[in-house]
C-alpha cells in the first residue's frame, strides 16, 4: 500500500498503515531510534531494547510495510534508515481531519448554544 497524500475525499491510502504501524509503543520506539541514530541494524537495535533480535526484525518489517523505514544491504547485515515522507502524509491527514472537526464542533457548539439560550429565556 503506497503512502499517499490525502485527496479531496479524505483518501487514507497508506495513512492507516502508517498509523497502525506506529500504534505499538515498542515499534514506535524502534522507529524513533532509527530516526535519531540510523542507519541501524537489527542486531544493533536489539542491544538497546528489551526484545529479541527476531522481534526487532518483525517490527522493522511492519515499519517497512508502512514505508517508514527502508533497507539496504551493507556487509553481512541489512541496514535500516527512516523515511519521513509517510509520516508527513499521515500528519497532513490528521491535520486536515482535525481542522475539519474543529470547524464542525465549533458550529455544533454554536447551534447548541442558541438552543440553550432560547430555553433559558423561555423559563
Amino acid at each position, binding site marked *: 500500500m503506497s503512502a499517499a497524500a490525502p*485527496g479531496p475525499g*479524505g483518501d487514507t*491510502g497508506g*495513512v492507516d498503515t502508517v498509523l497502525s504501524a506506529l500504534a505499538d509503543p515498542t515499534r514506535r520506539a524502534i522507529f524513533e531510534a532509527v530516526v535519531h541514530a540510523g542507519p541501524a541494524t537489527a542486531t544493533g537495535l536489539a542491544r538497546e531494547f528489551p526484545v529479541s533480535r527476531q522481534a526487532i526484525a518483525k517490527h522493522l518489517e511492519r515499519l517497512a510495510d508502512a514505508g517508514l523505514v527502508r533497507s539496504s544491504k551493507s556487509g553481512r547485515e541489512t541496514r535500516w534508515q527512516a523515511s519521513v515522507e509517510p509520516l508527513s502524509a499521515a500528519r497532513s491527514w*490528521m491535520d486536515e481531519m482535525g481542522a475539519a*472537526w474543529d470547524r464542525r464542533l465549533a458550529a455544533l457548539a454554536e447551534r447548541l*448554544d442558541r438552543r440553550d439560550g432560547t430555553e433559558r429565556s423561555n423559563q
Partner: protein
Amino acid sequence: MATNDDATTTNGIRRDIEVHNPPEEVWEVLVDDDERGAWFGGRTRLDPSPGGRGWFEDTDGNRRSANVDEAEPGRRLAWTWWPDPASDGEPDTDHPGGASRVQIDLTPLPGGTRISVTETPLTPMARASALTGARGPLVDLELRLLLTSRQSAVVFART
C-alpha cells in the same frame, strides 16, 4: 463557555468540546438530518441505528457514503464512511477510497455535556481486533469489495 481539548491518538485524531446542553439535546442535533447538515457544513442523511445507511456532502460536493456502527441515544454515535467514487468523477484504481471510522461520545457533566469525536482511518482489510481491541468490544466484520476495470475500487468494512 465551550472548551476545546484536542489530542492526537496514534491511530487517528480526537477532538473534545464541552457544551451547556444535556446529552439528550446534543443527541437530537446529531441525529436530525437538518440539524446535522447545519453544523456539518453540507447536506447529509443518516439512519441513526446500527447498520443504518447514509451519506455526507461537503461544500465542494464531494460525497461520502456512511454506515452506522453504533447508536446509543444520548451516549454514542459511530459510523464508518468512505468517499463515494461517483462524486469524485475520476476512477482511481490505485487508491481505493479511504474509509475511516468516526465515533462521537457524549459524556454528561455537571451543567452540560462533553462531546468527544475520534476519527480513525481504516485499512481496507480491517481486522476488528486490531482496531477495536483498545477501544471496546469486538464486533463482526463484513467486508465487501467492488472492483471493476472502469470504476474506482470501493472497499469498506461494515462492522
